[in-house]
């Protein structure tokens, strides 16, 4: 690797290290007019220790960093449960057009009728797609949508005068981790329902828990095993029969888009992850959009605002309204409108037929990957899958001392983003793969070939896996030390050489302190 290679460029060589006193990105012209008063002296600092670089140096630095990123525009990104599909550029073209991007969040409703009209149409579209007609768009992420939806259920139970009694939420052990976390955040207690050998809920364990203390069932459908819950209509009926609600985690909607609707199955509330299923850029923490969809019976609890339409078909009038018994706001203003517009564009581009084809191809790709790779890795639930497939590295661990972690790192060397690892928790050494519909046949085959090659390396050249990744900008990181003894703040060279100064060391969260 030459001196300008990536190893040289990052890590040891931050903007602070490149700083030279007096260097400037822009020259601010001298001001000869009246001077404002200085801020009070206690707010002034002598040395703020900001890096000083020329504009060119700074642009090159960040441009270089940006080329080290791996995203859906760089290559295959089969991160299970995250639906990292390619995001068509037309979504950005529309969202970035000046009429949307220059809209002010405080603009009066009558001045942003076009945008409100689009958001209204998106509500309608999502209501049609889920079969749950009342929709609130404002939640900014899937987990926030869950939180909104479960708060709505809590309000409904409270209105029935049953909140003292109904405190339990049933959650299958194949659910997204956010499901039990949401139930607990809302103030319910969580009862975990184990999976049977087929990966579906153990029916006896489920029925044992059914009584009038059940507030709701929260179910991820299809599950994190990529499996459809057999007999879901029956499950829904049984929960309703004891007076509970049914919440659907729609993060895996990509498997059933245009084919199965939560509302038709009898669900009361669900959320969608527009950033996954409806192709908007995500990862790295956001932005997202997690609309919540519900029945007309629960519509008055939706988070504010919802968009309403009045007037004639020729001259409609749109307004932001707060539902009569709204749980409140989830997010400032209208939510992440840029994400909502991208999702709307995606829906309009594909149309109903296109959306339906999306889920068909997503499921086909996952099953094609499954059949190509089966035999080379353990497959704990060997049935046909929906949008994703969960393999296990347990055989490699047992026979060759290779962990799933090593396999994931080696996948980086092969030019792919690693799949989700060690999740779901009910699969040992899990490798959770979701190719999505946007991988071509050749793309799925290339990824399968890489996985098979790695399985062979694990048997014959395990050292390659222990050392991986060797082709990435940064080699293998010491994740254990990073978690045990984190250095949370950059320090200038010489002042403790990367270690926080003792007197300023962040107080560590010691055992028990959170209890």
């Amino acid at each position, binding site marked *: 690797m030459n001196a300008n290679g990536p190893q040289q460029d990052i890590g040891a060589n931050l903007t602070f290290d490149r700083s030279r006193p007096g260097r400037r990105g822009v020259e601010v012209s001298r001001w000869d007019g009246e001077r404002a008063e200085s801020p009070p002296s206690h707010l002034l600092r002598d040395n703020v220790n900001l890096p000083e670089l020329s504009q060119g140096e700074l642009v090159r630095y960040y441009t270089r960093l940006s080329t080290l990123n791996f995203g859906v525009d760089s290559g295959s990104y089969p991160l299970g449960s995250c639906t990292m599909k390619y995001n068509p550029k037309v979504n950005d073209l529309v969202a970035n057009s000046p009429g949307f991007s220059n809209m002010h969040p405080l603009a009066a409703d009558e001045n942003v009728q076009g945008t409100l009209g689009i958001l209204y149409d998106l509500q309608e579209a999502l209501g049609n797609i889920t079969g749950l007609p009342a929709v609130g768009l404002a939640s900014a992420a899937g987990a926030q949508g869950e939180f909104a939806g479960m708060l709505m259920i809590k309000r409904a139970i409270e209105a029935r005068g049953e909140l003292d009694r109904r405190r339990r939420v049933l959650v299958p052990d194949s659910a997204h981790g956010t499901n039990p976390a949401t139930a607990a955040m809302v103030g319910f207690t969580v009862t975990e329902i184990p999976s049977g050998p087929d990966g579906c809920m153990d029916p006896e364990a489920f029925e044992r828990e059914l009584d009038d203390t059940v507030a709701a069932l929260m179910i991820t459908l299809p599950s994190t095993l990529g499996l459809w819950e057999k007999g879901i209509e029956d499950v829904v009926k049984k929960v309703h029969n004891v007076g509970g609600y049914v919440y659907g985690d729609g993060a895996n909607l990509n498997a059933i888009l245009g084919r199965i609707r939560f509302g038709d199955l009898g669900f009361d509330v669900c959320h969608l992850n527009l950033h996954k299923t409806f192709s908007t850029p995500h990862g790295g923490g956001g932005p997202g959009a997690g609309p919540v969809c519900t029945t007309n019976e629960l519509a008055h609890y939706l988070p504010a605002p919802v968009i309403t339409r009045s007037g004639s078909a020729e001259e409609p009038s749109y307004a932001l309204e707060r539902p009569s018994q709204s749980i409140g706001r989830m997010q400032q203003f209208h939510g992440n409108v840029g994400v909502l517009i991208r999702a709307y564009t995606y829906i309009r581009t594909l149309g109903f037929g296109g959306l339906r084809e999306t889920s068909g191809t997503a499921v086909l790709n996952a099953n094609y990957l499954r059949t190509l790779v089966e035999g080379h890795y353990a497959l704990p639930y060997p049935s046909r899958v929906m949008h994703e497939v969960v393999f296990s590295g347990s055989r490699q661990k047992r026979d060759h001392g290779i*962990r799933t*972690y090593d396999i994931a790192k080696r996948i980086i060397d092969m030019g792919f983003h690693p799949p989700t*690892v*060690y999740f779901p*928790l009910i699969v*040992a050494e899990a490798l959770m793969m979701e190719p999505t519909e946007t991988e071509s046949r050749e793309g799925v085959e290339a990824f399968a070939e890489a996985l098979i090659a790695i399985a062979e390396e694990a048997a014959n050249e395990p050292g390659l896996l222990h050392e991986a990744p060797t082709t990435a900008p940064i080699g293998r990181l010491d*994740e*254990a030390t990073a*978690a*045990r003894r984190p250095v949370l703040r950059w320090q200038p060279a010489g002042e403790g050489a990367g270690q926080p100064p003792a007197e300023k060391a962040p107080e*560590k*969260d*010691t*055992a*028990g302190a*959170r*209890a």
Partner: protein
Amino acid sequence: MEFPEELRYTPKDEWVRQQDGEADIGITDYAQDELSDIVFVDLPEPGASFAKGDAFGVIESVKAVSDLYMPVGGEVLARNERLAEEPELVNESPYGDGWLIRVRLADPTELDDLLNAADYQAQLSSD
């Protein structure tokens, strides 16, 4: 992998070492190996009481975050304070320096429900 004869075990991979109405509790060699590098252990304050099967703490590794379950009921007399700074002790010495809590047994007969080393190992190999 070691499973000392003198300890009692749970199917959820905790161990108990009993002496004079008190007991030390930790996680097994198998559990620490499955979790891999342990980075944080959250343990209850002495004085807290838990029933058998209650979650008494949380253990976090680079792979996963897991609840810790009481193999037997009792009041917490002490917790392993060293783990706050050295969580890796659980990996290095799961039955020794990596112990988690000491409890006063609420009902010593609960120990009878636990597995001996041979039965625990048999259960592991049947998984």
